[in-house]
């Protein structure tokens, strides 16, 4: 299934300054939101990013679509340096190729715009002048996302639609330009169970029909299991484990991944989960120590972990990488 490499991320890092004193002009502390993250996404692949709130998964997504500028590191799309793109025609071209779907369909759609205006806006920005062509493309996209017949939706407003329908509109807006790569940030977490499965299936279908790759951001490992080909698990800005989805979920290797997976409730009352082995609580990655970020909570960490720098990812099985000194 893996095609050619579409997106390459290397050493991606984003620090946010923390203001400790009101009148201190230069920030002395930084949140290491994303710290030295490296991965690749192949053509037609769904690459999952999982972890708890505050682990840096959304920041990573926003860096990839240029909503944030990275502190350092590189992003390449089809071999082209994304960070060098600043403005004008090149940025517009980048936006045509890379899009994002946001979490909350109640906030991501302008309540004063009709569905047609919402989905047609990217086309207008990209210079599709002909109204007829815009109408055709919007109608076609709305039917592709299951809002059929499109005429009944085009001139309605977001408040007239249910949550599931709104998220389909947001998907249509992201897909209408025919992007190659889409960052989907928790696209189903606001939706009810019976609606959610439909949107998940739609995203999988669109991958085939439109030949699009995704970075799929989620905190829900069960959803990730169904959506993603490969998974990266993040903890406090670092990727701690990457591998094929089923392998990571069924045989997690990093102690954090093991705890995370053990903590997921299983919809089967006869199933007994393994104990969740993790100490303490999650902290914010403000000026983190140089040793392993997970060490304060790690059940297997020892003195060597404390004297060594944060471990880098090692390939422990074919295609399965783990960042841990003890493995």
């Amino acid at each position, binding site marked *: 299934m893996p095609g050619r490499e579409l997106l390459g991320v290397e050493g991606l890092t984003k620090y946010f300054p923390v203001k400790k004193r009101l009148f201190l002009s230069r920030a002395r502390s930084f949140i290491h939101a994303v710290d030295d993250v490296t991965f690749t996404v192949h053509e037609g692949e769904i690459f999952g990013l999982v972890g*708890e709130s505050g682990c840096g998964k959304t920041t990573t997504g926003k860096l990839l679509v240029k909503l944030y500028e990275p502190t350092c590191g590189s992003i390449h799309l089809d071999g082209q340096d994304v960070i060098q793109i600043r403005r004008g025609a090149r940025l517009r071209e980048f936006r045509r190729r890379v899009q994002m779907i946001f979490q909350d369909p109640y906030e991501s759609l302008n309540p004063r715009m009709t569905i047609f205006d919402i989905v047609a806006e990217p086309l207008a920005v990209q210079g599709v002048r002909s109204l007829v062509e815009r109408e055709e493309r919007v109608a076609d996209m709305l039917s592709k996302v299951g809002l059929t017949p499109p005429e009944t939706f085009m001139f309605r407003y977001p408040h007239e639609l249910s949550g*599931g329908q709104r998220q389909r509109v947001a998907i249509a807006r992201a897909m209408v330009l025919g992007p190659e790569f889409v960052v989907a940030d928790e696209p189903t977490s606001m939706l009810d169970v019976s609606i959610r499965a439909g949107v*998940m299936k739609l995203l999988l279908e669109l991958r085939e029909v439109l030949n699009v790759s995704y970075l799929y951001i989620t905190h*829900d490992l*069960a959803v990730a*299991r169904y959506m993603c080909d490969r998974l990266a698990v993040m903890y406090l800005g670092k990727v701690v484990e990457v591998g094929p989805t089923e392998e990571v979920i069924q045989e997690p290797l990093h102690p954090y991944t093991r705890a995370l997976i053990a*903590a997921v409730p299983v919809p089967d*009352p006869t199933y007994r989960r393994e104990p969740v082995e*993790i100490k303490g609580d999650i902290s914010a990655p403000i000026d983190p120590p140089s040793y392993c970020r997970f060490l304060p909570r790690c059940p297997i960490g020892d003195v060597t972990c404390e004297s060594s720098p944060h471990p880098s990812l090692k390939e422990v099985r074919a295609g399965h990488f783990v960042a841990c000194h003890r493995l």
Partner: protein
Amino acid sequence: MALLDVGHLTMHYTTKMGDVHAVDDVSFEIDAGEAIGLVGESGCGKTSVAMSLMKLLPDNARILGGKIVFDGLDLVPLPEDEVRKIRWKGISMVFQAAMNSLNPVYRVGDQIIEAIQQHLPLSIEEARAKVAKLYTLVGMDPKLMDRYPHEYSGGMKQRAVIAMALACDPKMIIADEPTTALDVIVQDRILHRIDEIRKELNMAMMYISHDIAVIAEVSDVIGVMYAGRLVELADTVTIFKRPVHPYTIALMSAFPSIKGEKRPLVHLPGEPPDLLNPPQGCRFHPRCRYATAVCQEQVPQYRELEPGHYVACWNPQRKGGVDARA
């Protein structure tokens, strides 16, 4: 006799656009020490049932019929000052998004003390000692009671709110989505703690959630709600292994799991109905693949299919398990 006996409870909200049929003909019982899980999607009436039991309803809500017999006393006709004696001491509640309900300018401990003093004749010192005990019970250091809410993490706030609900030694606690906003590792700890406390204190519990996996872990009995009605109720294993209501089956089939065979998810077409104008007959019939003519006309009676297994459906499906058809 059951600790709580809810019979044919019907509650509507009056709005400018008409009556919202939020809870219609809901009946169930809870024994002392038993845990019932109430599951369903947003707007299905789970929280409205809870608020009716606590009689914490907004002005436009009316209980149109039915009974809520708690410990031998029907709460429906009871005046507010009588209900206040039962609230918190008899039934208490952990509210949805409770962690945002702590007052940011008061110390957390003081807020719990205030709740205790409203209901029990204790001095400040006695109440403080009680809070310290409650903190230990929910797994927190009692020293934290003198801190402010912003110094607490999400999980700690949730524990504090649970401690508050336990303050007057209730016979029953209603927990409305208490872990929904929390990360899984914190959720796991809170779920374990709730379960331990419940068994330690032999307290009955009603746990409300949209997440069937969480419900599976905490409940002895599960009730499934759809569009204001209880559609199926049985012990936890039966609900998961042999569900008979088409909606329960659909809910199970749409829910992804990290364990077991990775079967294709089946999605349920359509949307839940508008409760201002609920469909005639069975409220699920427009989305039901097994619907027949009778489903469109007559409301299916909520009946006992086999001992302890209740269902409201004209065509219960006995093959059980999840639906693999896409």
